[in-house]
């Protein structure tokens, strides 16, 4: 029981971090139709900015400052790069963000060096939040969950309950009409792109301190972000939330299980030994293939339900 509850908590907190990471991507895609390959780079940028600012002004001010800075970079990219490329269609946009990802990674290497930076947990968050049975749950993870939920609520309220949110939603489906009503649609797009990048930056501030802040951190989360977006359904914020939790929990529990094909065969009476053909495949444990499972899910989802869990369109 202890194991189950702790694993569930671990899975949910990891899933919530994934959600913070991928919500921006989903938002940008649903509103602008741009598949932003550089999304994870903004996650990295958030982590590095927070680390640098944190040295001067402390962790909490950095937590509030770094995401808007990452968002500002995103907005500038949209205003002076993406907007120009936009008129040539989606493929050039894709290539543009692809190049941007490399550009950001190399810039980070030049500015902050190749090695990991010592981005430390602030004392306030270093320690145990509560002890369940005999396992303690770290404060940082609790904080991670809190920030993710607060972010979800804020984005939801912004989109559905505010004027700017209404304009954004309207600009998506009827850009001409919105423009005719006197709204600046390109600026709305710039805000959306910047906002999405700021969300990734926020995830970076938390993820960077919880794990490691180094130049390959973008590349290592890049693929999983797309898995979340696809599995959840391209453009669906609720879908992304569901998919993040699903993947977080799936990965955590897969690590916990020592199931293997050999074990399953043994259960039905077929004995597999080292001499058996393809033994290395039969003896593979679920815990060993855990890191691959999300990608398996991605492939299966695309085959059987291309629009994702909560997606609305299949194209």
């Amino acid at each position, binding site marked *: 029981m*202890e*194991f189950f509850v*702790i*694993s569930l908590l*671990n*899975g949910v907190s*990891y899933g919530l971090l994934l959600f913070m990471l991928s919500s921006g991507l989903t938002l940008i895609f649903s509103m602008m139709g741009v598949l932003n390959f550089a999304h994870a780079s903004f996650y990295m940028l958030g982590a590095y900015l927070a680390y640098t600012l944190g040295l001067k002004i402390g962790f909490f001010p950095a937590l509030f400052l770094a995401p808007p800075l990452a968002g500002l970079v995103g907005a500038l990219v949209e205003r002076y790069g993406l907007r120009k490329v936009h008129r040539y269609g989606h493929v050039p946009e894709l290539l543009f963000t692809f190049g941007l990802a490399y550009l950001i990674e190399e810039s980070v*290497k030049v500015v902050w060096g*190749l*090695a*990991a930076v*010592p981005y430390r947990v602030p004392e306030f968050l270093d320690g*145990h939040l509560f*002890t369940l049975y*005999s*396992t*303690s*749950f*770290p404060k*940082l*993870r609790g904080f991670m969950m809190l920030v993710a939920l607060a972010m979800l609520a804020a984005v939801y309220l912004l989109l559905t309950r505010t004027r700017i949110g209404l304009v954004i939603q309207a600009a998506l489906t009827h850009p001409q009409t919105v423009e005719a009503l006197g709204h600046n649609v390109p600026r709305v797009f710039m805000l959306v792109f910047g906002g999405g990048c700021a969300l990734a930056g926020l995830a970076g501030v938390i993820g960077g301190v919880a*794990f*490691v802040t*180094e*130049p*390959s951190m973008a590349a*290592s989360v890049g693929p999983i972000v797309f898995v979340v977006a696809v599995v959840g359904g391209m453009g669906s914020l609720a879908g992304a939330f569901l998919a993040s939790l699903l993947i977080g929990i799936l*990965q*955590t*529990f897969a*690590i*916990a299980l*020592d199931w293997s094909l050999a074990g399953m065969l043994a259960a039905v009476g077929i004995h597999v030994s080292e001499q058996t053909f393809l033994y290395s495949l039969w003896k593979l444990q679920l*815990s*060993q293939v855990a*890191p691959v499972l999300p990608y398996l899910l991605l492939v299966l989802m695309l085959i059987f339900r291309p629009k994702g869990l909560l997606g609305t369109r299949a194209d």
Partner: protein
Amino acid sequence: MIQFSIRAAVRSTLCAAALASASTVAQAQTVKLALIDPQSGLMAPVGLNQLHSWQYIAEIANQKNWAGGPKFEIVGFDNKLSPQESLTVLKQAIDQGIRYILQGNGSSVALALQDAVQKHNERNPGKEIIFLNYAAVDPDMTNSKCTYWHFRLDANSDMKMEALTTYLAKDKNVKNVYLLNQNYSFGQAVARGAKEYLARKRPDIKIVGEDLHPLAQIKDFAPYVSKIKAAGADTVITGNWGSDLALLIKAAKDAGLNVNFYTYYAATTGVPTAMGAAGEDKVHYVGYWNVNNAKFVGADVAMGYDKKYHDDFYTMATYTGIAMLAKAFKETKSTDPVKVAKALEGMKVESLNGEVEMRKTDHQALQPLYIAKWVKVNGKDVKYDQEKTGYGWKTEALLDTYVATQPTSCQMKRPN
């Protein structure tokens, strides 16, 4: 004014030319060693620390003229911890005329390099290169896959496991052991060795769980920690290194996991900071040296290194390596890898941990091994801390060379 500046320019050019010609003379006696290791990515802190270690020892050797003439120069090549990338940079190093290769991080990389060096030497007689492996400890490299041009300065995984289990077997509190390792040749060797040696020395110890995870990819070790806890382990044996160990210990600390860790690499960059006070009396490592040894041999080197790089010196094999090369250069009055390789076979040098012998049959260094425990610095037997944590390594056991020495199945093919 203009005239003056022209004259100054001419003068400085002449000076530069004179300096340049002086340096070409010096270069003739400089032996370049290519260090092929990760200098970017997750494992970069370890790789850079080791690059600096080699450079620092080379500097000492040059100052004190260990080699009787030739000077050492270490050139760093970033292999991003990838065997593929390593072969590419090996080619670059060879193209630059470098004849000595140093590598240590990742047996997967070392095996690829060992093979590539062997092939290169067979195909390019007269341009042989020597591969000094200072930390890749897959036993195969000095057993079934041994080659003449490969020399291992570190104790291999089986030797360390022999030492570790000899020590562990005396502790009656150890009952349930969990094995957590990286999923590649080295991690698998650690797991296999632990099971084999524990079964021999303490058959009553239960292996309550075993896991292999991808190398340098896991960021969140919390699921593994809850698994260890659920298995009811009192002791974890792990060959993890770099971020894989630092993050594991960090996750164990966060979850309040109360077990003893027996590691190979807890003294490497990042791990001491991750442990802090939480690792006190719990984390151990087995290795070839500890700065807090009985006579603090090598403490001056560690202090000098700290002063220069603000980092800890732990890769003592760099000292052994340079000492052996220097001795070989001196004995053969040559820096030709063919002669040097011959001189290295069976060579004995006095290193910081005592006498180290490069066994002739398999090119495996034989040396005393240490087992150390993470404790508070007390100024007596634990004088030096790590990463400014106020904690350091207390020597728990010093095992003589013969304890860990293993037989070898190596049947080496020597060039004629």
